[in-house]
């Protein structure tokens, strides 16, 4: 792990759990513990790799909230660093920003991308009532480093993802545990999240992909779950695989969440079976 990331993570973690500093935080909002979820690698509130219908932070109607996050993913031949922040107004609209640095450790070089996101809660509630919480969102992605993506066949250096998500919690599901499920449908032309540009020489069209997450809370603070994310495959130089992960999430308070995961990212840029760990810290205000 690069030193700057290590210090950044440590500082974020310390500032979030240190009681003296924590007291200076604004009240963290009225939604129930863990319903703010974590921050995705694309900045939107959700799981780790799938945006959820839930909005980040604990802001409810009549409140606002914010989060900052740092995420590190390390697989065999690549590493991804993400720094992001989000803002939630009235538990109605979420605005998010994330910066990604993708280190091509074996091939050499670094790819960078920034992502602005907007998500709106359309109907329903995660916890109460029969209907799921349904949200729709947009992610505007732009490459800061387009030379390599262009060289391997990407046609654009920026693009939009559109998605619709539905999420529901079962307070007493199987084994009398609280379960949460989320499904997301995304329309995209991004190669490897967009880090390898948008559109491709193999296929230059937008695609609908499906994403899903299921988690079970072991108690009030600890959850384990799985995520699956379908991906398009638009570049001819290398096959792009679907992503999956299995995660453990810890919500010690409304101020901080920690997620650790084992991720299987399949083949990336011609290097097969990329597996490794994922670590994410989020502070919520």
């Amino acid at each position: 792990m690069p030193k700057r990331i290590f210090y950044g993570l440590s500082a974020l973690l310390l500032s979030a759990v240190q009681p003296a500093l924590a007291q200076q935080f604004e009240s963290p909002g009225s939604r129930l513990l863990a319903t703010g979820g974590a921050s995705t690698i694309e900045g939107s509130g959700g799981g780790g790799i799938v945006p959820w219908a839930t909005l980040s932070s604990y802001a409810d109607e009549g409140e606002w909230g914010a989060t900052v996050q740092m995420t590190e993913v390390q697989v065999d031949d690549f590493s991804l660093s993400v720094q992001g922040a989000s803002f939630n107004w009235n538990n109605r609209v979420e605005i998010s920003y994330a910066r990604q640095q993708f280190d091509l450790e074996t091939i050499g070089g670094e790819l960078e991308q920034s992502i602005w996101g907007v998500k709106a809660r359309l109907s329903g509630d995660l916890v109460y009532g029969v209907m799921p919480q349904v949200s729709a969102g947009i992610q505007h992605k732009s490459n800061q480093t387009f030379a390599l993506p262009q060289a391997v066949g990407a046609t654009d250096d920026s693009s939009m993802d559109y998605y619709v998500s539905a999420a529901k919690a079962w307070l007493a599901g199987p084994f009398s545990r609280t379960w949460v499920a989320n499904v997301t449908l995304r329309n995209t032309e991004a190669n490897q999240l967009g880090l390898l540009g948008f559109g491709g020489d193999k296929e230059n069209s937008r695609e609908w992909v499906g994403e899903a997450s299921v988690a079970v809370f072991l108690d009030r603070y600890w959850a384990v779950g799985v995520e699956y994310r379908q991906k398009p495959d638009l570049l001819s130089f290398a096959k792009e695989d679907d992503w999956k992960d299995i995660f453990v999430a810890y919500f010690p308070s409304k101020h901080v969440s920690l997620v650790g995961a084992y991720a299987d990212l399949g083949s990336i840029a011609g290097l097969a079976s990329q597996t490794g760990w994922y670590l994410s810290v989020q502070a919520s205000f």
Partner: protein
Amino acid sequence: MKIWVSAALLLLGSMMSGAIQAQSSELYQQLGERSGIETIVEEMLLGVADDERIAHYFADVDILRLHKLISEQVCNVSGGPCEYTGESMAVSHNNLGINNADFNALVEHLIAAMEQENVPVSAQNELLALLAPMHQDIVE
């Protein structure tokens, strides 16, 4: 044939209702029966009284009567031998202007009280699932 199907259904039905009843009273036991429930509700109300977000709703309320009614209700929904003698949730919360945040604040105090009393997570979840549908009658 028909009579066998009816008999099987009847048997299945009685087994299922028996199972549900057994499960409910198991929840009642896990909550510590009458006295455990009264302690949980007392701790919840103490938490509420200290919570500036929602304490004002209870300023003019007869707290002993409220404690009795909520305890009856929790006892009743968890399968205990109690009758709830209060008004319906819709009537008792009519025009109070309770929002999501207020409702969640009460849920948080209930959870904190159950944690305090070492109620197993499974029993906590079962009680919360039984109470959650009241949200639609309470929140405006």
